[in-house]
């Protein structure tokens, strides 16, 4: 619960307050329960499943936000509440300050067409269309002339590295290539919000790493607000600015990878992150001594200790820490080396 505000002080893009999603035969019963009675036990007693319980968080513009948790913890449900593929039972969701739960059908369709893109775990490609046909599909649905839609699709196909395969059918592509098509398709409309539900979990580890790099690259060239679900902690650490950890429908902690590792809110989180070497997540800025100085070269304040390991090995004493072009502090070599050795 350390931090529900946006990271990095960026303006809020998504603001979710008290989202609930309960499944069950009489889901309407939930709204008749008084606020303080909305606990897992009372829900169970009336035969309801709280797939998402009281989720509150904010996501900054351009932030990459990961939702993590074990199978059945409610990640997909939460993601689908944000897109309204699943209607939340209670709560408020604002995109850029506008409550999307109050949108009418037409406005919702417009919002999805213009500003949302989604990548699916099992790709959800249309088997009867070629690669171009799949990628151009969202534009075609909006009524864009075919030639123009396919031109735009070709640009994206090139971006994801599938040039030359555009006339193939999905069945003729490998899993990794299929997901590249899925990624290209989700970006054809140049959406502001990008949703990914376990996009890589159906792929082999090597291809997974490729596609993660692809996502990072795409995020650098064009900044979007990204919400992605994963149960792979490595993936979350690699891609996300902040991670929300879910357990049985509740968000039990939201924080940067470093915060989760260094200050786990509960034992559950502690066990969750136990395998992560601190040097991979601890950033220079958090263990430096603040003291502006004259140096113009040194280690980057934003880098993790693992990133600067080669410099640490070569260095003696303390290293200047640079943010932008100014020196903001000093990094003590032994303190840094300690994070490499210590497990929390």
């Amino acid at each position: 619960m350390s931090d529900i505000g946006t990271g990095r002080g960026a303006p809020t893009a998504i603001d979710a307050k008290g989202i609930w999603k309960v499944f069950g035969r009489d889901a309407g019963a939930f709204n008749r329960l008084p606020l303080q009675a909305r606990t897992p036990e009372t829900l169970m007693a009336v035969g309801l499943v709280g797939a998402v319980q009281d989720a509150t968080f904010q996501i900054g513009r351009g932030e990459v936000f990961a939702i993590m948790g074990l199978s059945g913890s409610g990640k997909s449900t939460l993601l689908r509440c944000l897109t309204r593929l699943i209607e939340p039972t209670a709560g408020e969701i604002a995109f850029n300050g506008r409550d999307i739960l109050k949108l009418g059908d037409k406005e919702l369709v417009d919002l999805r067409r213009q500003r949302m893109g989604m990548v699916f775990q099992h790709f959800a490609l249309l088997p009867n269309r070629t690669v171009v046909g799949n990628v151009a599909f969202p534009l075609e649905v909006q009524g864009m002339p075919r030639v123009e839609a396919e031109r735009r699709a070709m640009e994206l196909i090139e971006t994801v590295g599938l040039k030359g395969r555009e006339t193939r059918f999905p069945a003729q592509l490998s899993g990794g290539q299929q997901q590249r098509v899925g990624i290209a398709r989700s970006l054809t409309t140049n959406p502001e919000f990008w949703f990914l539900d376990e996009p890589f979990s159906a792929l082999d580890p090597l291809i997974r790493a490729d596609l993660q790099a692809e996502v990072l690259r795409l995020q650098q060239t064009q900044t979007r607000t990204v919400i992605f679900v994963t149960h792979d902690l490595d993936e979350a650490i690699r891609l996300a600015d902040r991670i929300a950890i879910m357990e049985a429908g509740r968000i039990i902690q939201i924080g940067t990878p470093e915060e989760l590792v260094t200050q786990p809110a509960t034992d559950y989180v502690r066990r969750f992150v136990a395998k992560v070497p601190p040097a991979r997540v601890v950033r220079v800025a958090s263990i430096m001594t603040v003291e502006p100085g004259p140096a113009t070269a040194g280690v980057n304040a934003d880098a993790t200790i693992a990133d600067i390991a080669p410099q640490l090995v070569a260095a003696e004493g303390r290293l200047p820490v640079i943010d932008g072009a100014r020196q903001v502090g000093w990094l003590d070599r032994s303190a840094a080396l300690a994070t490499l050795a210590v497990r929390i």
Partner: protein
Amino acid sequence: MVPKDVAGRYSLWTGLAVTLAILATSLLAPASFAQLSDKAILPISDWVGSGMNWFARDAAIFGVKIADITRALASAAQMPIDWLKFILADGWVKGAGFNKVQLAPPLSWLGVILAAALVGFRLSGRGLAILTLLAGAYLVFFGLWASAMTTLASVVICVVAALVLGLAMGFWAYRSVRAEMWLRAIMNVMQTVPIFSYLLPTLLLFGYGPSAALFATVVYALPPMVHATVLALRSVPSETLELARMTGCSRAQTLWKVELPVAAPRLAIGLNQVVMMTLNMVIIASMIGAGGLGYDVLRALRRLDFGAGFEAGMGIVALAVVLDRLTQVAAHNQSTGRQGLWSRRDTLVAVLLLLVPTLASLALPALSAWPANWTLTTAPFWNGAVSLINQNFYEPLEAIRTAMLLGVMNPMRNLLQAAPWSLVIALLALAGYTLGGFRTALTVVLLMLFVLISGYWQAAMSSVYLMVLSVALALAIGLPFGIWVSGHARLHHPVQLALDTLQTLPTLVYLLPAVMLFRNGDFSALIAIVSYAVAPAVRYGMAGMTHVPSERIEAALMSGCTPWQSFRFVRLPAALPTLILGVNQTVMMALSMLVIAALVGTRELGQEVYTSLARGETGPGIVAGLCVAAIALVADALLKSGAQRAARHEGEAHV
């Protein structure tokens, strides 16, 4: 589990006691428990008959008579039939008799065959193209082309109608739970009602002729299409539907751009079934004036001209095999994602192939209608063969026939017909209770009581006797054969292919060889039914055995089982649920053939339906048809719950 078994044993004992009690009552109690007195029989068929008559003649909605509506529908349906027949079979003809002038020729047989072969070549390859050419050549050279095209015209129209209606209804059922419930209930009954019974109401409503046949056929072929549509739409992954929503598809876009294309492979399988069922029904419907190859067979059967019947029957086979293969490869291509097989140039070539010979036929009439004196016929050969067989093998054949009739068939029929109805129903109820519980027992009793009070008990028992006997024979031949084949991987494919081909043959075809060898009567019917129903027995025998988990077999081998022991204690129990489903399927096939077998002069429910059809008596025809459905439903209920019981112990059934 334990209490259930105890309950089972307990009920078995009570059941025995009840049986004994009934035996006693049937001997001692009033005779009406053995044979229902005529007074107790409800005149259900009269009610149904007058109800239907009223509906067809006098009923009206909003002042418009149903009769007028149906006649209008019939003539509306006549239009496309006429058009297609004009294109495919007859050409544009004015006048009749001697004044007949042909204004435009039909599509030339050469063009149709070549175009079809091109389609086959593109969809599958050389094999299918050659098959198409051969089948076409057979139809032309044996003078069956015009009949075949008449049949094909009906098939095409019925398939299109069944496809559109089936898709629409399937889509409705997919969207609405309530609609699905109703449709499923109706379709389940519809699929067990014998084929003739569809003809009666349509005959009444639409009059004698091709359009009545069309309506009957469409109704008959609808259930599998609805079923396939619902299954196909259900198989669309939820993520794909989410994609449609996320890209902001409208309802129509979701249907046309997402749901239907993604469901296409399964829809194509449904299409194949619909085509085959339609062909079967169109053949049967020639009885009410659809014409075509079926009519040729029926006419030959009536004249006892087996050679001609056999020839026309083989024409049906040729048409069936080509239609089946074409739709099968289409479905297969869909499901394996083979696409882009047909180019625009192919369309052009096909059109040219159709047009050029047709235009040429203006100068060369042989291209539009194969001259009668060039026609080959093997009819004398077959007739000769039949008489040769009858001269030389008359005695052994006759010996087999009389031995079966006197030794097995007649005693069994007499036994069943003599058994008191109360006893039969009680035994069936008992079986229902032990296999499936109270609800199954109740279903069985209600269905059998319907048969009883509608006055068809005796005929029904004759049907049951023929059915039981032929099912037993089919199983005795089919299951061991299937089990044997399952052990020889090399045989799987050819046997599978043979079974597929056998099952595509319209039912009428099966009657021919039996009648040729054994003349009319119950024995011929038995042979025809067994040869029709043996295919599912073989199929399920194979399926059951090949799906036994290999780990279990390894476990049996490792614990030192002999081959026989591993078969008896491991493989057989594991295959049991599937085998029982196979029995069920065999029963259903036997029942549908039983009715067709009425054509060779059996004396049972099928005959009742057939005679009513011939006399145009709607009531008895429909009620006797419903009695066949009742028997089918009883068998289905008992065997399904048996399979479920076995599956509870042994895991899933595999089909």
